[in-house]
């Protein structure tokens, strides 16, 4: 995949071996990239429609969070709030007393999942990247096959398994299965990074008398750090974005609920308090969103390295 990554400035930035090309000066924009005025207009119009589709739920959600309930449940519909107020952002802490805990739980579960996945995946990816042993290809294929089964399909036996392990209604009921379904793609992703590290380094360490474990710990790990960071971020996002079904089925204690399930309780009430639900959603995801804005290049790198070309 290296040739792919190199052309993407985003991916290039994460590997220290590749020098980031200097940004092209705008004045000397090549002729091929010049657009006629109507093309520019078309592009921006298209982008407007596209981004409207992608962002409208967030914009509308934000507007809703600013509207008092009485205005929310009134016709005719108006997109812009008439009397905008941030009341919902203060009231929600009373209506959902455990909101802070839900936000923390979401974060905590995703973090533990990420730690487990990294601990398990780093050695496994190294094994697949460096050693030729009988059945390696088959085993890698078997790992990838896990991706085909969603947690929802295996819910019944997983439920029985969690019950017999005594994990129901604990954090582990969400963490253990959550991590399992993220391991295979993480192995695949990290393996592509590790393959790029020259084998000669391992051999040099070997010749100098370093043990295999020492080589992995002191030679490979530091070099693989950018890749590990990408895998960790991808895993975290996966764990964070997909918290629903395990938390819905394997846990009924509200003190362990992650944000999405905690907010799902809103729907149980007689009248859904939409403005507070939206306000709580925004506050809940805000910390992670801010982090992601800064880390987005790693996300792009992770997505493209994992799949584009092998």
């Amino acid at each position, binding site marked *: 995949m290296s040739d792919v990554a190199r052309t993407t400035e985003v991916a290039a930035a994460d590997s220290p071996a590749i020098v980031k090309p200097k940004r092209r000066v705008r004045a000397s924009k090549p002729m091929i990239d010049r657009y006629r005025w109507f093309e520019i207009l078309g592009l921006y119009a298209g982008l407007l429609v*596209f981004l409207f589709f992608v962002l409208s739920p967030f914009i509308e959600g934000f507007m809703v969070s600013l509207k008092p309930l009485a205005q929310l449940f009134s016709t*005719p519909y108006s997109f812009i709030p008439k009397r905008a107020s941030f009341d919902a952002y203060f009231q929600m802490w009373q209506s959902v007393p455990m909101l802070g805990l839900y936000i923390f739980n979401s974060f905590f579960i995703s973090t533990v999942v990420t730690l487990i996945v990294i601990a398990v995946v780093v050695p496994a990816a190294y094994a697949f990247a460096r050693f030729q*042993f*009988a059945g390696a290809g088959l085993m890698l294929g078997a790992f990838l096959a896990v991706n*085909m089964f969603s947690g929802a399909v295996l*819910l019944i036996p*997983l439920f029985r398994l969690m019950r017999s392990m005594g994990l129901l209604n604990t954090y582990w009921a969400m963490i253990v299965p959550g991590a399992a379904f993220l391991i295979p793609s993480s192995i695949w992703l990290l393996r592509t990074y590790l393959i790029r590290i020259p084998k000669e380094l391992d051999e040099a360490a070997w010749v100098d008398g370093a043990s295999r474990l020492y080589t992995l710990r002191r030679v490979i790990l530091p070099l693989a750090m950018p890749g590990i960071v990408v895998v960790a971020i991808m895993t975290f996002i996966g764990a964070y974005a997909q918290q*629903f079904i395990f938390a819905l089925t394997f846990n009924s204690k509200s003190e362990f609920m992650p944000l999405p399930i905690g*907010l799902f309780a809103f729907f149980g009430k007689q009248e859904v308090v939409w403005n507070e639900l939206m306000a709580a959603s925004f506050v809940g995801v805000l910390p992670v969103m801010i982090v992601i804005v800064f880390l987005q290049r790693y996300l792009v790198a992770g997505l493209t390295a994992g799949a584009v070309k092998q």
Partner: protein
Amino acid sequence: MTSTRSATLFALALLAPALIYILTIVAYPLVDTFILSFTNAALRPDYDWVGWANYQRIFTAGNFTEVIIRTFIWTLLSVGMKMIIGMCGAVLLNAAIPGQALFRILTMPPWVVPMAIGIYMWSWMYNGQFGMISGLLQNFGFISRPVAWLAYGDTAFWATIVTDVWIGVPMVTIYFLAAMQSIPRDLHEAAWTDGAGRFYRFRRITLPLMVPAVLTMSLLSLISTFNSFDIIWILTQGGPSGSTTTMIIDTYKTAIGSRKYGEGAARAVVICIFVLTFCFVYFRAVRKLSQGEAK
């Protein structure tokens, strides 16, 4: 490095944690599903072997074939729309215009926000009386009366698809964008020198070279869409009157809702068989494709 026995042992030791983890949490439940599907397991601890009875029941009684067909239509529509919108998005984001970097960031939120939270927002937007979609369409005069999108079979079916597309589009777009950028620039420059227009270059250079990326993404999103649970469960719980009940919802209702573990397992097995078939077909397609290139 030497490929001695100790190296193999070391590799296996490195693999052991991942292997044990997956065997316990994925492989064992998978085997358990197959075994359960031949039993009448339910909430009570003991159960009996019933042979093919579960499979006989789901295929003869009820509307299982209807559910299968619905699942396929739902999945194909959703994947098709994801591919088309994703491709359009990638083309737009690939254009060298000011603001490009910002637009790329703005594409990502649906992917990184917890899915369920995005779906809550949609469920409000679909609200008939007060929701945005019905409201805006009325304001612009496209519809005369409020439409409760999730209350009718047809509209609920499409509404769940649109939300699924919305969640899937960012990933597809970014992926296609990366694939587009990996196309050697020389090709475009050569064609441009020869006077080929933008649209012609897209059709004759970009699209053909994107085929592998489109195939890969189609399979990935086919599998995830086929298994899509959260969206339908939060928006409609499979209703109204079963019009959005896909196989996965059907399985969940049988197994977790009605506590018929055995029958639910049989339904899950049917899902697994379909997913395996997709993968098999996909690998055949890829092999054919690479053979075609080799010629």
